[in-house]
C-alpha cells in the first residue's frame, strides 16, 4: 500500500496508516458512529503493531522541518474528512473547527503514547478516544453508551 517509494519514508507509512484507518471505517457495520469507532480502533491497532515505524514517523516530526509538519497536517486532514459526516447527523452541529480539533487531539494522543513509550497500550485507549471524538456530535452520554454497547471493546 506504499506509493512505490517516490515519497519520503514517513509519508509512505502515514499513507499506510491512513489506508488501514479508512479500511476499518469502510468495513464497519452500522452507521457513522460505529465507523468512527472502527476507524480509531483500526488506526491504533495498526500503529501499536508497528512500533519502530510509528516511533520513526511521530518522533521524526519533532525537530524535523516543514515537510514533516506538512505531512502531519495532511495526515490529520485525512482523518478529519472521516469526521465530517457527523455534522449532518448531529442534533446540533458543532462549529466546523471541531473536526480539525478532534483530528489534532487524536494525533496528540498517539504522540503522547509514543513519547511516553506506551505505544503498546494504544489499542486500550481506543474506546476513550472514540468517546472524545464522538462526544461533540452525540454528547458524552451518547458516546459512552455507544462505545459500551460494542461487545469487543
Amino acid at each position, binding site marked *: 500500500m506504499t506509493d512505490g517509494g517516490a515519497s519520503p519514508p514517513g509519508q509512505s507509512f502515514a499513507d499506510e496508516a491512513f489506508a488501514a484507518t479508512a479500511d476499518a471505517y469502510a468495513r464497519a457495520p452500522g452507521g457513522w458512529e460505529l465507523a468512527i469507532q472502527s476507524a480509531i480502533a483500526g488506526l491504533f491497532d495498526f500503529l501499536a503493531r508497528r512500533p519502530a515505524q510509528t516511533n520513526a514517523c511521530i*518522533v521524526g*516530526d*519533532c*525537530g*524535523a*522541518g*516543514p515537510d514533516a*509538519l506538512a505531512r*502531519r497536517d495532511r495526515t*490529520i486532514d485525512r482523518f478529519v474528512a472521516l469526521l465530517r459526516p457527523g455534522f449532518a447527523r448531529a*442534533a*446540533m452541529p*458543532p*462549529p466546523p*473547527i*471541531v473536526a*480539525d*480539533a*478532534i*483530528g*489534532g*487531539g487524536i*494525533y*496528540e*494522543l498517539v*504522540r*503522547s503514547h509514543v*513519547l*511516553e513509550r506506551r505505544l503498546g497500550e494504544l489499542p486500550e*485507549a481506543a474506546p*476513550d*478516544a472514540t*468517546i*472524545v471524538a464522538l*462526544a*461533540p456530535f452525540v*454528547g*458524552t452520554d451518547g*458516546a*459512552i453508551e455507544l462505545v459500551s454497547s460494542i461487545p469487543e471493546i
Partner: protein
Amino acid sequence: MAVSAPTAAPRSARRRVRRPDQLTGGRHGLTAEEVRASQRERIVTAMTAAVGEHGYHGVRVADVVWRAGVSRKTFYELYAGKDDCFRAAYGTWIDRLSKTMFDAFDTQTEWVDQLRAALTALLGRLAREPAAARLCFSEVIAAGGDTQLRRDQAIAIVAARLFTAPGMPDGALGETMRAGRVSELGETLRREIAAGRTEQLPTLVPELMCAMVLPFLGMDAAQRELDRGTVLAR
C-alpha cells in the same frame, strides 16, 4: 510582558548596540545570580522574538545572542544549545499563559463562566503577544523531544485545572477527555496562528466555548455560548 527585543535587522548589518534592558559593564552592584537572571530573561525574550520572526528552524543562536546582547560564551554557559534555550522560553511562556488563564478562571464561580473567562483571557493575551503565540502553539511542534514532554506536562496541568465540568466522567476516561479538549484547543490555535490569524483569535471564543461545553453541558448551553457573540479580550 510584550516581547520588545530589537526588531529585525539584516543579519549581515548587525553591530553591537547596548539595549535598555542590558546591564552596563563594570561595577553595577548586582550579584552573580542577579546578572544570570537578567541574562536569562533577555535571552528568553530574544528567543521569543527570533522565533516569532524566523520560526524554530530559521532561528540561529547568533540571532538570539545578538538580540539579547550577550556573548556566545554566556549563552552556552546558560543553555546547552538552541533547543535547550527554546525549551526554556517555552516553559517561561507557558507558565505566564497558564497564570493568565488561571487568574481569569478564578474570577468566576460557575464552571462555564470560569472556562469562558480563562479562554477569553488566553486568546486576548495571545493576540497581543503574537511572537509568544507562535512559539507556544505553532513552532513548538517542530522542537525536540524534551520540549514535547514539557508540552505534555503543560497540557496535563491545564486540563486538570480548567476541565472540572459538572458531569465530567471519572477515572481514565475523564483524564482522556480533559486532555483531549486541551489538545484540541491547542490544535485549533496552532492552525489559526500558522495561518496568520493570531490577532483574530479572540473572535473564536464563542465557537471554541460551544465546542468545549457541548460534550459536557449539552446543546442548550453550547448554543448559548454561540449566541453570546464575540467578546474581545481586553
